[in-house]
């Protein structure tokens, strides 16, 4: 009888234990952490910043929110962070998990700033069907426009780029579009370097000016390939302007093989090696020839002595 009770107890324990294992995603968050609220408002600027940070630090494993295209990792695949069953959590819970990490999920406590983490949470909240109300509406509203144009002016003297975004209203007037984020990208070998700076949003005239970095290398003539585009295609479709600009620092690529060095090619051996080697060979051969000549001379010498 005792044994059966023991067995049942053991089974029960195993059951509970295995339950907690299977429920590995059941990630306990302390109550104090749950109560934290996102101190940043869900403005379109913050959401767009959050999207950028998400694409850098989260997308490689979690995929795009709501698309469920995460990495198929075993034993626990990353969660779709746009799914409603994830977003039922409070801001504080998500913040805690991002900070602490678990298993294959890194700890982002020190790798990204608090502000950036909250921006990501603001971005994820934009997929939340229940909390749409919280979206701030205090943003600028652009009139409905057609024929949206992106113009790019390059000032080579002070290395600035001026982009202008405009569209034609229903009344047929061309107006600037305000508060739209632009990306200024410089082509490099394996990707695009973002030189947009801190605040690449268009002003009330639809203008945005960006200072090109003073020390960024270009090719021999200082030319670089640039792409200027509206960051989010959702506004006006894909709008971009590619241009070759002469804003980089002219750079002459150095060929390391031009240098005379021990590790280099045969043709570029250091002078001292060539001199000592050729000198050594010449010296040895001249000694041999000297000896030979002396030996030829010997019989003659003997004759003359006779």
């Amino acid at each position, binding site marked *: 009888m005792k044994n059966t009770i023991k067995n049942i107890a053991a089974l029960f324990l195993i059951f509970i234990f295995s339950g907690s294992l299977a429920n590995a995603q059941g990630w306990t968050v302390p109550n104090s952490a749950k109560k934290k609220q996102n101190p940043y408002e869900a403005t379109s600027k913050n959401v767009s910043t959050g999207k950028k940070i998400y*694409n*850098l*630090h989260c*997308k*490689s*494993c979690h995929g795009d929110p709501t698309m469920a295209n995460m*990495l198929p*990792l*075993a*034993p626990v695949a990353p969660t779709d962070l746009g799914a409603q069953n994830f977003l039922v959590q409070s801001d504080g819970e998500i913040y805690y998990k991002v900070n602490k*990490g678990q*298993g*294959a999920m*890194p*700890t*982002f406590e*020190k*790798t990204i700033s608090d502000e950036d983490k909250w921006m990501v949470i603001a971005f994820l909240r934009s997929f939340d069907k229940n909390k749409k109300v919280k979206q701030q509406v205090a943003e600028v509203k652009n009139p409905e426009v057609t024929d949206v144009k992106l113009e790019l002016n390059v000032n080579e003297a002070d290395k600035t780029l001026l982009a202008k975004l405009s569209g034609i209203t229903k009344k047929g007037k061309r107006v600037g579009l305000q508060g739209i984020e632009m990306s200024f990208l*410089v082509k*490099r*070998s*394996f*990707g*695009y*370097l*973002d030189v947009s700076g801190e605040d690449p949003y268009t002003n009330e005239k639809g203008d945005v000016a960006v200072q090109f*970095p003073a*020390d*960024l*290398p270009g*090719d021999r003539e200082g030319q670089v390939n640039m792409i200027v585009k509206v960051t989010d295609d959702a506004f006006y479709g894909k709008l971009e302007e590619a241009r070759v600009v002469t804003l980089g620092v002219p*750079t002459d*690529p*150095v*060929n*390391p*093989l031009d240098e005379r*060095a*021990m*590790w*280099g*090619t*045969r043709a570029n051996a250091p002078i001292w090696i060539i001199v000592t080697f050729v000198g050594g060979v010449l010296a040895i051969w001249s000694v041999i020839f000297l000896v030979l000549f002396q030996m030829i001379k010997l019989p003659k010498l003997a004759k003359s002595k006779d």
Partner: protein
Amino acid sequence: MKEETSNNSRRKFLKSFGISVGAAGVVSSFSLIGAAKAATKKPAEMVNLLTQDGQLVQVDKNQLRPTVNEPLDELQKRGREGIPGKSFVMVIDLSKCRNARKCMSACQNHHQLRADQHHINVLQMQDAEHTAPYFMPKPCQHCDNPPCTKVCPVDATFKRQDGIVLIDNERCIGCRFCIAACPYSARIFQWTEPKDAEKYKDLTYNIEANVPQKKGTVSKCLFSADRLREDKLPSCVSACPNGVYYFGDRNEDAVTNGTTGETVRFSKLIEENAGYTLMEELGTKPRVYYLPPKNRAFEFNGDLLNEENLH
């Protein structure tokens, strides 16, 4: 008398010339007839093909021949020359590495290596008794003053203009001087028949990938020079799930992260994170830079074969 001989020789020349031209004509007309016959035999099956300049053409199926492999000489020549104007560098962020070993398996796949052969290896490091241990991926450092190329007696290992140190297995005699000279133990020797030797025996040797591997020669990391030619990141860099690797061109002062695709300034990355190189006191001037394991993304889990580390 003199004129006669010269006339003779001219006549002889003309005669032989005529015969040879005639013969050539006969032969060529035969071959033309042959070709025409072949063409009229089965005109039914035509195949649509795309030419190299993008034109769609129709070709008789009878005329199709298998493509000639990229000739060895061409591969060898461009492999020696390298990519002009580039200066490749790698940055390894130790704070992100959790020993997932995806870089190693991607590399072994690319270069046809067995699981125990490493062009890149993730090491468990502990510098001193009371320092914190960390994981360190270690590929070839592609030194700017490489000790290995200095000692090669047959010019098999060499440095190219884009900074990559390569090895030509067609020239290598297997003396292993370079293995002895390398302070980073970056080179391996093919003691036995390489993996899948039978499968790849007809493949043209590609100096930029060291494939197919050759028994009795030395092999090492090549920064995936064949992929760089197509503007692709090296295998290890793009395989990393944790954003450890940055790779790029020092001439452009930009490196790109293989995981996130983010491109950053090389000089800023090194400056802001106190980047360093391995054994700089030897004067080898490595092209692989390390960022110290500060503010780690993962807690160190010392067990190398821990299941949790391996996904």
